[in-house]
Structure formats: structure tokens, C-alpha cells
């Protein structure tokens, strides 16, 4: 296939590809015919055809239903120097995603119809789909509910005050009750602000050594416990954002056993790194929740394995070079993650045999769509061609200077990762990732 990296998917034959989706045998290869952005037919690869469109030989590559990152920060409106909706989309496509949910901590906050409409309008006629998450409270101030019904009407798929918890338990109760009318989840960043104080990193022996103020794991656990109790009481849908502690994983596991309507997500950095990394004082290891100690990392991996944690998300949080290039305690929290997520998932979970590619499809596509009450893509004739094509043999080195994101704040610069995104298709468009 020649020409532009981003083009209309008018007539394409994806040849010799292994399909990872329900009902497919991973030992077999298939030819996927795409006409006008839709899957026209899927044939065993040996069948002869007289197809006269573009042909892409995908021998050795895997086709997954398009991946959705249900937790990103694209900074537009407000901080377009760090990321725009379009640069975020390009970063996501390069990382193998076809859709993302944007968090509402923009400036102005996504707490009104105009901002939702602006976001959706900006990404109209694009390969990449954006599903905006709206603020629970006005300006995320934790004082007054945002106009949730109108926000859902405008296109919001969930509510969150991400960046902090809704500290007022009564207000969170109301949000859980009110959002039940629309069957959308409340996504909570679980953190007791008083227990965390001015902490910069996980509270543990490493923080004691470094003299950095600690953020104790229990600050997450107590809010997860409160939220689960409120979800049980109200019957609302609660989704635990970027879970990072053993205590929280245990609580969610127990709540699921009890039948509480709870789901949870974890990030690649929380299952790939520990707080030991902070010894470098490199602010690219500063995120919230912070990198935790080994026992917590093991609990996250166990939670992913046994289904306690439903989704893998990046919490892609771009920050300018100027802001991150500072003393550790002066730098903001957050790292970018869209372009390294698949590689980290492959390195930390698939290669060691913890999860299969089928499981990854659940965690990075089917479950996120399900949590949001949206229909997940399927690789099936008649469906929109919403696909992520990955190259499992493609080892590569992370180079922060060669990323699509406008920001450079990755802790994985120089890491060698297996597997890279090869192409994505969605909404009638086709994007071939650069090598």
C-alpha cells in the first residue's frame, strides 16, 4: 500500500491476518475485505478472489477489534501546547487505539454542553472516535452537580472529577443516584486528600529514604471502601479509576463477589514500575496515583488476571517540557502513555503468559465499551471496520523525541518493547503507523 499514512478505507483487502476476536481460531489466517469502511467479507486466506482494490499482506500480524482507551487527558480546550484533540488522536492511533474517552479536567472544564459539542465537533469525520467524559460537579469543584442529563444528551458517556475524589459523600451519593437514570458510570479518582496531603510519591521505605512526602496506599483504600458502600447503597454504577493498591484490589474483588455494580481499571505504568524508580528523582516517574511498591504491583497483576480489574487504560497525561523539567516536588503529576501501552502490555502481561491476546481484547476493547454502555466493535461481515492491527514480531525502542504526542513526559524512553501497532482502521479511514 502506498501514499499517505492516513487515507480513506474505500477498498482494501487485508490478507493473511490472524484475527483475535470471539469465535476465531488463532492458528488460522483470514482475508478481510473492506469496502467503504465496512467489513464486506471475511474469507479463509486460501480462497482465490478477483479483488481489485489495495492489498495489504498482513502475514504474521494480528487483527484485534479497535482498542478503546477509556482514560486520557487531551488538554483541549485550555492547554493546547501540551496536547490537542487531534495530536492526542494521532498519538493514540500510533499506539494502536481507534477511540478514547477524554477526561473533563480541561480549561474550561467539561461541565457544560458547549464543551462536549466542541470536542465532538473537532473530531467529526476523523478515523479516531472520542467519547467525552463530563465532570460530576461544576468546574470539578466538588460543590454542585453538573447538569448531568444535558451532558448525557450532548454526548457524555460517563462522569468523573478525575484528578481528585468527590470529597463530599452526600454529593457523591446524589451523583450515583442521579446517573442511574442514564445508566452511565461514575468514574472516581479514589484519594483522600487529607491523608495524601502534599505528598509527592508512594509512602514507603523509598519515600523515607528520599525525604519526599509520602502518599499512603490507605488514602486510596479508604475512598474505594466508601465508594463501594455508596454504590451498594444507591445501586449506582461505580468505576474505580487507575487502581493502584493491594487494598483497593481486594476491596473491589469482595464487592464484585457481593454483586455490587463496580468495575475497575489499571494503567501500564502501575503494573510495569515500582516506587524504586523514583530514586532517580526524575519527574517522569511522578504520577498520581504514585508508583507503588512491589506488593501492590503484584496485586494489580493478580487483579488483571482474575478479572477483578476489567480494563487497561493509559491515563495519558501530557505535560510541557518546561513543567516537567524541574525538581521532583515542583513538577506536576502525570505521564503520557498512548504510544507505549501496547508494548508494555505485551512485555509485562502477554509474554510472561499472564494474559492472552484474547484477554487483552477484553481489557482494552470489549470491557471498556461495556462499562460505558456502548457497543464494542466486532470483526464480522457487515460491521464497521474498526480494527487494530499489531505486529507481534516488531521489537522497538521507545524514543520520546519520535512520538506523535505534543509532550515528551514518558518514563519509558530507551525501553525496548515487543509488539507494535501496525495500523488502525475506523470510521471509513485507514492509518498506517510509521516504523
Amino acid at each position, binding site marked *: 500500500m502506498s501514499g499517505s499514512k492516513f487515507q480513506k478505507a474505500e477498498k482494501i483487502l487485508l490478507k493473511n491476518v490472524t484475527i483475535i476476536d470471539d469465535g476465531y481460531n488463532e492458528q488460522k489466517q483470514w482475508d478481510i475485505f473492506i469496502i467503504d469502511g465496512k467489513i464486506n467479507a471475511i474469507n479463509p486466506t486460501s480462497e482465490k478472489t478477483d479483488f481489485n482494490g489495495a492489498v495489504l499482506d498482513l502475514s504474521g500480524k494480528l487483527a484485534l477489534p479497535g482498542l478503546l482507551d477509556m482514560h486520557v487527558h487531551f488538554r483541549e480546550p485550555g492547554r493546547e501546547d501540551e496536547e490537542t484533540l487531534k495530536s492526542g488522536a494521532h498519538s493514540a492511533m500510533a499506539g494502536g487505539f481507534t477511540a478514547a474517552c477524554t477526561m473533563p479536567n480541561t480549561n474550561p472544564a467539561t461541565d457544560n454542553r458547549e464543551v462536549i459539542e466542541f470536542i465532538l465537533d473537532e473530531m467529526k469525520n476523523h478515523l479516531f472516535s472520542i467519547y467525552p467524559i463530563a465532570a460530576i460537579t461544576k468546574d470539578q469543584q466538588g460543590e454542585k452537580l453538573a447538569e448531568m442529563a444535558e451532558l448525557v444528551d450532548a454526548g457524555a458517556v460517563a462522569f468523573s472529577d478525575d484528578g481528585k475524589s468527590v470529597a463530599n459523600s452526600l454529593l457523591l451519593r446524589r451523583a450515583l443516584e442521579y446517573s442511574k437514570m442514564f445508566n452511565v458510570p461514575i468514574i472516581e479518582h479514589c484519594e483522600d486528600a487529607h491523608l495524601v496531603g502534599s505528598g509527592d510519591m508512594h509512602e*514507603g*521505605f523509598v519515600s*523515607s529514604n528520599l525525604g519526599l512526602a509520602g502518599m499512603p496506599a490507605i488514602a486510596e483504600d479508604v475512598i474505594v471502601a466508601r465508594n463501594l458502600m455508596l454504590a451498594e447503597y444507591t445501586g449506582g454504577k461505580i468505576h474505580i479509576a487507575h487502581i493502584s493498591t493491594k487494598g483497593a484490589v481486594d476491596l473491589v474483588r469482595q464487592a464484585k463477589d457481593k454483586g455490587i455494580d463496580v468495575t475497575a481499571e489499571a494503567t501500564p505504568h502501575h503494573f510495569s514500575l515500582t516506587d524504586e524508580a523514583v530514586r532517580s528523582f526524575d519527574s517522569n516517574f511522578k504520577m498520581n496515583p504514585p508508583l507503588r511498591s512491589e506488593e501492590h504491583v503484584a496485586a494489580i497483576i493478580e487483579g488483571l488476571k482474575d478479572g477483578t480489574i476489567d480494563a487497561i487504560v493509559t491515563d495519558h497525561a501530557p505535560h510541557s517540557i518546561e513543567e516537567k523539567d524541574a525538581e521532583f516536588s515542583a513538577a506536576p503529576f502525570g505521564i503520557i502513555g498512548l504510544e507505549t501501552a501496547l508494548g508494555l502490555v505485551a512485555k509485562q502481561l502477554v509474554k510472561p503468559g499472564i494474559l492472552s491476546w484474547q484477554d487483552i481484547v477484553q481489557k482494552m476493547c470489549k470491557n471498556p465499551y461495556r462499562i460505558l454502555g456502548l457497543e464494542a466493535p466486532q470483526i464480522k461481515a457487515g460491521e464497521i471496520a474498526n480494527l487494530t492491527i499489531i505486529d507481534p514480531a516488531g521489537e522497538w525502542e521507545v524514543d520520546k523525541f519520535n512520538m506523535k504526542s505534543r509532550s515528551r513526559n514518558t518514563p519509558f524512553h530507551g525501553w525496548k518493547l515487543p509488539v507494535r501497532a501496525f495500523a488502525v482502521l475506523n470510521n471509513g479511514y485507514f492509518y498506517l503507523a510509521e516504523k
Partner: protein
Amino acid sequence: MSFKRKHLLGLEDVSAEEITHILNTAETFKEVLARPIPKVPTLRGKTIVNLFYEASTRTRFSFELAEKRLSADTLNFSTSTSSVKKGESLRDTAQNIEAMKVDMVVIRHSAPGAPHYLTQCIKGSVINAGDGCHEHPTQALLDMLTIRDKYKYLKGLRVAIIGDILHSRVARSNIYGLTTMGAEVALCAPQTMIPYEAEKWNVRIFNDVDEAIAFADIVMALRIQMERQTQNFFPTLREYHNYFGITKERLDRANKKITIMHPGPINRGIELDSDLADDDRYSVILNQVTNGVAIRMAVLYLLGGELQE
């Protein structure tokens, strides 16, 4: 031995051999300081900048004096009179100063890791003169020199560090340095001021000051920062003094020979009583200050020696 380090950022990874070498070098500088003209040409032609982002009297004077005794040219920087007030970043400040051909930077900063970050910004040697609650290596070195002066050895001595351990860079550097040198270290504070998993430092932990004194050959008192009182680490200064203050009565009750140290400045009557601080049968506090200059001369000399090659 030759000293291979380019920077002195902390004592956590400094070996017993290196510490001994620094202390021995400081001894030779003590002899220099005793001369009628206490000055040597060792660092002539070298320029050192003292980047003090935090208020300091003794550490800053001690470094300045050490630099002058070694004949270095010095520049002094403080936040109140610098472009930091205009919002200049640490990287820009440091790189501008370095562009003026500075060889070494002594930095005091409220952010843990600021000296480590500085090593990524500039080519010269960096000496940590205190970074937030992290480390203060030259203070611990001068403490060890002072102890060695009195006891002639460090191994096996019992040192109790009493006070706000949580926020103390002096405590951390002393824990690393003293345990490396084979001393036994104990920490004593209200439990709110004991760092998380502090026992992993291989130290004993007391919440009872009488037990700590009973344990110790040397008591190192730490300053209680007045602003902590509003943060509920302890209820009142009165209660702190009553339960954790080091007093003559407590020492008398212990009925043993004890050496009292303090990195200063002292809150007299809070963490340490005046009659102990000023009594040279117990206190070596002013010896610590004197030794500070010799230690800083030794560190500057050993790091500057690399520059001369």
C-alpha cells in the same frame, strides 16, 4: 586512596573507606586552620558558587569560609536577591551561572533531589548543602569528625538521634554515615515523626526519651521546627518538651556519661535545655561548628582535585 567522586549528593551510597578518607583529609585541614595564616592555595583559580535557595547561616558561612581558606573565588546566591524572584527555573539559573565558567556548585534547596537534578543541568561538580528532608552529607561528616575527635573511633558507639526525624536531612545523612561506619543508631521521636518503615534502616526506634538516653553514648538532638506544631505532629510545644525534651534531670537519672550534639540552631528549652547546650562536660556543639569548616575544605579539596588533573 584516591577520591573518585565528581559530586557529593548524599551519604547513602558512600563507603566506609571514602568516609574515613574524607575525615582524615579534614584532620589535615584542621591543622591548616590552626596556623597563623589559615589559608592554602589549593583551589586558586577555581570558582565556586554557593546556590542557597533556603535560608542558612552556619552552613553557608561554613562553606564560604572553607572556600576562602582554599583560595577559591566564590559567588554567593540567595533567592531573595536573584532572578528566582522573577520566576527563573533552577536549570536556567544554574546554566547561566555555569556559562560564567564556574567549577563547582554548592546547593541548598527545599526540594529533595534538587542537587541530583542539578547534575543533569550542568557539567561542574555539585555538593549538596541540604536538600529538603533528604540529605545533608557535610553535616553528618562533621558530626562524625566531632565524635571521632572525642572517642577516637566510631565503630560500636551508640548514637541516639532525638527529635523530628521525619523532616530531618541531618538524621538521614547521619543514619547512613554512622551505620556505614559501624556505629549503632537509635531514633527517638513521637511516632508521628518516625518515617515509614524506618526500622529498615537497621536502627532501633524509641518513643521514650529516657530509654533512648539509657541506650546512648551520644545524644544528637534535632531542632523542632515551630511551624510543625500547627500540623498536629504533636499537640503542643509544652507537651513535646515534657515528653521528648533533653534535660539535665533526665541525664542525671540515666547516671552515665553522655555527649550532647545538635546541628543548630537550637530551640533552647524545647528540644534541649540551655544548661546542657552550654556545658562542655556534655556538649560538643561548638566543636561541631568548628569542624564544619574543616570537613567542607576536605570535600571541596577532594572533589576539586579531580578538576585540577
